């Protein structure tokens, strides 16, 4: 069973090679190859879920071979309860995105090859238990994203692509410094890159003097890591790449970006920043909470002012990931579980939103709620696209946290988590929920209610393919809204372990 992670990790690459080997002008072959690859990957993740031992908080399916013996760098993979939902999400979303990208006709080979490469790298980030390997995947992930946004993106794509790239690189280069510092902090020992072995607050006592002043190693390098991950999440001061990237990216890429890539940031906190520097994490949790709060409110406010529906959803992602940060800063089981659950739920609901916007875009070729000239971009879609509207309602209410749909439980848990630590922040954060409902419903009202806009009359409703790939997400949103246990049971052991660790230092 230990090899299965390798299969999941490298299957997309095999698929990519297959795509590249298919002769030119055989676009459907390319699409089929990609589809089959992602499907098999999805099946494998389900197998993974079947064989997963929910009682075990630690790493499972571990796989480890030495890579650079001189530096004790290993090719070591493994997952735990926090990774598994992300893995499933990743496989699912890529399968769906392959279907949704069926209509891409510009340089199909390159597109799908890059898509598969992206999937593999994202899996790599989630699986790797070796810090060096983690960093490599973390960085390599940028390359396919860069080209996917840059080549297949909207009118202003270069700017967005470069911005995304530079932003992340800026953050991660500091993470690199942190990684190397850890390598020497452990005295170049066997486990100097072993993420699991580094965990547990080994560096609490360590100090070092820079420019004469003595600084705690842990506190200094917590911020290095923080920078690396916060850009990805994105937390408030580092969020401005997100709207550009989302608006410019093609639908599938926005879905992946919002659905999985943002989660890599919070996953970094859960897997690296918090466990390796627990004392600092506890000490600075207030700052994290405040930043999360700002992201929630600020993102929601900005979202409400947007006239471009995709930009609106992009800002809503900022807001929702702010909730995740709040949950993380709580450092209680409610908050942490809520955060991980929110990572998954936001993945599904936002994916739905972006896919739906993409579907609409294919018909309308614009995304204006209100056109720059002030006229209505859409209107009366409810009348013209009934099926579409129903799915849209599900996705929208899921992401505004209607009870019975997935968003609610995670947000409620997050609030439960933070209340005790940060009462005032909780009180302010509920405003985020309020505005969150406001901008979504207002957008919905402006687009779907009222007289049918003459432009929208000849849009045809969702076709079989689109319905087919929306259904799994609807199921996720509804089922996990009513029975969250399948997810929570998987993650709670690992989360509990992490909370225990952090509790030691608070």
């Amino acid at each position, binding site marked *: 069973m230990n090899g299965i992670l390798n299969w999941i990790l490298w299957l997309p690459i095999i698929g990519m090679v297959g795509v590249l080997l298919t002769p030119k002008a055989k676009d459907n072959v390319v699409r089929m190859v990609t589809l089959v690859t992602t499907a098999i990957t999805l099946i494998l993740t389900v197998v993974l879920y079947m064989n997963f031992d929910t009682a075990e908080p630690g790493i499972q399916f571990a796989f480890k071979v030495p890579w650079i013996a001189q530096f004790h760098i290993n090719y070591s993979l493994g997952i735990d309860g926090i990774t598994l939902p992300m893995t499933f999400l990743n496989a699912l979303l890529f399968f769906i995105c392959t279907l949704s990208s069926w209509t891409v006709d510009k340089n199909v080979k390159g597109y799908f090859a890059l898509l598969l490469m992206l999937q593999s790298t994202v899996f790599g980030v989630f699986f790797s238990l070796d810090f060096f390997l983690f960093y490599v995947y973390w960085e390599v992930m940028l390359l396919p994203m860069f080209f996917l946004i840059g080549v297949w993106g909207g009118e202003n794509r270069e700017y967005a692509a470069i911005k995304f790239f530079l932003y992340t690189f800026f953050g991660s280069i500091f993470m690199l410094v942190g990684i190397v510092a850890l390598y020497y902090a452990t005295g170049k020992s066997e486990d100097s890159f072993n993420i699991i072995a580094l965990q547990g607050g080994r560096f609490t006592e360590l100090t070092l003097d820079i420019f004469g002043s003595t600084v705690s190693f842990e506190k200094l390098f917590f911020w290095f890591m923080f920078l690396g991950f916060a850009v990805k999440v994105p937390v408030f001061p580092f969020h*401005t790449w997100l709207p550009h990237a989302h608006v410019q990216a093609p639908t599938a890429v926005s879905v992946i970006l919002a659905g999985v890539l943002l989660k890599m940031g919070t996953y970094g906190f859960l897997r690296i920043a918090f466990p390796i520097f627990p004392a600092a994490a506890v000490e600075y949790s207030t700052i994290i909470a405040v930043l999360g709060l700002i992201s929630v409110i600020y993102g929601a406010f*900005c979202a409400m002012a*947007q006239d471009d529906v995709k930009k609106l959803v992009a800002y809503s992602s900022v807001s929702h990931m702010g909730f995740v940060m709040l949950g993380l800063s709580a450092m209680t089981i409610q908050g942490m579980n809520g955060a991980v659950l929110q990572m998954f739920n936001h993945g599904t609901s936002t994916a739905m939103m972006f896919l739906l916007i993409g579907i609409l875009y294919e018909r309308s070729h614009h995304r204006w709620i209100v056109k720059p000239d002030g006229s209505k971009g859409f209107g009366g879609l409810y009348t013209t696209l009934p099926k579409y509207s129903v799915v849209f309602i599900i996705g929208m209410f899921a992401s505004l946290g209607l009870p019975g749909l997935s968003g609610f439980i995670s947000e409620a848990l997050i609030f439960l988590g933070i209340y*005790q630590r940060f009462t*005032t922040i909780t009180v302010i954060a509920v*405003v985020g929920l309020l505005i969150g409902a406001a901008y979504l419903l207002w957008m919905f009202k402006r687009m779907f209610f009222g007289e049918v806009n003459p432009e929208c009359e000849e849009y045809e409703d969702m076709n079989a393919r689109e319905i087919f790939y929306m259904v799994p997400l609807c199921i996720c949103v509804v089922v996990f809204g009513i029975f969250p*246990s399948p997810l929570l049971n998987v993650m709670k052991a690992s989360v509990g372990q992490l909370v225990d660790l952090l509790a030691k230092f608070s």
Partner: protein
Amino acid sequence: MQYTVGSIAPIFLSPVIAFVINAFFGRKLPRNGDWLAVLSIFISFVFSARIFGDFFFGQFATDYYIHKTFTWFDLSAGTHVFKVDMGIYLDNMSSIMLLMVSGVAFLIHLFSTWYMDHDERHGRFFVFLPLFTSAMLGLVLSDNLFSLFLFWEIMGFCSYSLIGIYYEKEKAGDASLKAFMTTRVGDVFLLLGIVAIWMVVGSVNYVDIYAAIAQGKFDGPAVLGISFATFTALCIFAGAMGKSAQFPLHVWLPDAMMGPTPGSALIHAATMVTAGVWVSLRMYPLMVLGDITWFIAVIGAITAFGAATIAMVQTDIKAVLAYSTLSQLGYMMIGVGVGSYNAAFMHVITHAFFKACLFLSAGSIIHSVHEQEMPKLGGLKKYLPYTHFAMMCCTLAIAGIPFFSGFVSKDRILGDALYFGFMAGQNPLLAIVPILGFAGAGLTAFYMFRMMFLTFYGENRTHDSHGHGHGHKDDHGHHGHGHEIHHEHLDFRSNVPLLILAVFTLGFWFAGNVVGQNFGNVFGGKNEWFKILVEAPKVEKFVDRPKQAFSSVDTKGEIVLPHAHYHHQSGYAGPNPDEHKLHTAHVIGAWLSIFIAFSGVFIAFLMYIKKSVKPLAEKFPGITEMLKAKYNFDHFYIDILIKKGLLGLNRFLAWLDMGIYDRYVIDGMAAVNRVLFKASKWFDNVVIDAIGVDGTGVTVNLFNLVLRIVQSGKIQFYFIMLVMVLASYIWTLNI
């Protein structure tokens, strides 16, 4: 005797099943499966009736309750334990509520099958209505605030969908958005309160909360300077204000009448809007502990009076009913506030019956006349006799005429309010509560009869208005095709529910002594069954209760409230009760309200039948204008708060984000270089070449600029640099 879950769950589950089936296969079923919905509700009705019977006919002690829990999900890991329990909490109050909800819902469903016939949204309607009913029943059954909030929000969603069911209307969109958002304002605070209670008390079970209150354990760190009990009480009441449309969150309810009339009848009159009152009653000990009962009373009074005043000038029949609903909800809140516990709850029940009936009658009028503007109606008595009969009963009830249900409940509330305001030794300013309350009662009688007179009496005005421009008034898809009256449409599905509901507007169903005096022995020994069955929660008895999953619990205990002894005779649960004064207050209240009610009716009669008095609009045009503008709340909220305030802020922030922060701060890193590049090019061409390269260039302090000068291509300048740098290095060696 024991209740198994199996005998309770169907109440909630059968509508859910109906919803699921209709949602997926409704289109394929005959009549879009409306019969399925009706059937499912009937099943719940039967089960609730059984339970009510058991409770009513003394199967149990009056303070018996059933508490069954199961774990929804469980986060326990290692040392941490955290479970989210769901469960059923069933006591006298909920048994009554269940019966009311399922009964009224059943009748309304039945009516809707007639009303929604040939309506394009028929199927959609019968998807949401069962869902709503199930949510409402679930809310009544649920044993903790969390699941209550769950159903609470689902009801909100149904209300949103039903208001916006005619989505091609712009106004429908506005109304549904407004409804959801306004209630959401309260909801988030409710959620906040729930979270606070959960994390501090450790559970949101009613019984746990009661126990915590009784043991004085219900205190946590003060929030925002407010004591914990007050904070949580306020949060929960905020939720109640949203749902029950209390001032200042009342604006959504009138607009909610965009929805089809039966929907309005069920959701916005009978059940959902009373959920706020329900939660306030359930959390009554908390309200007392947090000492915000006076606040509740004041809010209720303002709502009751304000809404009544607006209702006086409304011309749309549904609008009148909407505002009367607001006003009545205000009375319920007054009841909660002044501690008139069971009267308040009784008013919930009585109001549910007569208001549902009123709405259905209005519905049948609209459906047969396709007109809902009262000035264009009139003289319908002879066309719609049944409707007229039912509506008259309800009007009498709501106006507070003796022997009708409305009188019983409202009179008790007002009596307690009188005591609360003048005799209970409260802050004298609280006298406002009874004053507004009585005034509102008079206005109620007036505007209800105004409606009756304008609609059913006088000559028929439906024919002299022309076809055009009335279709839109109709909440139907129909567009006004003349105004001939289709009373032949009326069949049992439309009439029977009305009549049944009308029957329940009689007062003696709810209390033997309909005029304060006890005569007639209606329910052998249970004359005052309401007082007997419904008591304010006696927190003491919950202190040490056995708690195991799926087992009914039977406990008795001392009857004690945090600050007052529950008063058997009057049912008064407010502060410092006094036997005699209470009695006096009730007697005074009774006669006062009778007098006021009749005078209200009389004025209406003079104005609209005898026409001896000029109607309001001509008498006080100024006031009328203000009332027609609904005190400008909508304008204030939407134009000022939302459009100017919130949206302005948002636009500003968004501009700040992309226009300033992103463009200059983030891109600045690169932009600086580009700018300096240009600047330095200019510097090169102008300065360097003009005055030739000498040391001066070095003094320019822009880093990039210096670099570019350095790169000026003048070899000798390179030499100078070299020498100077060498010299400076030597200098730094300081020898």
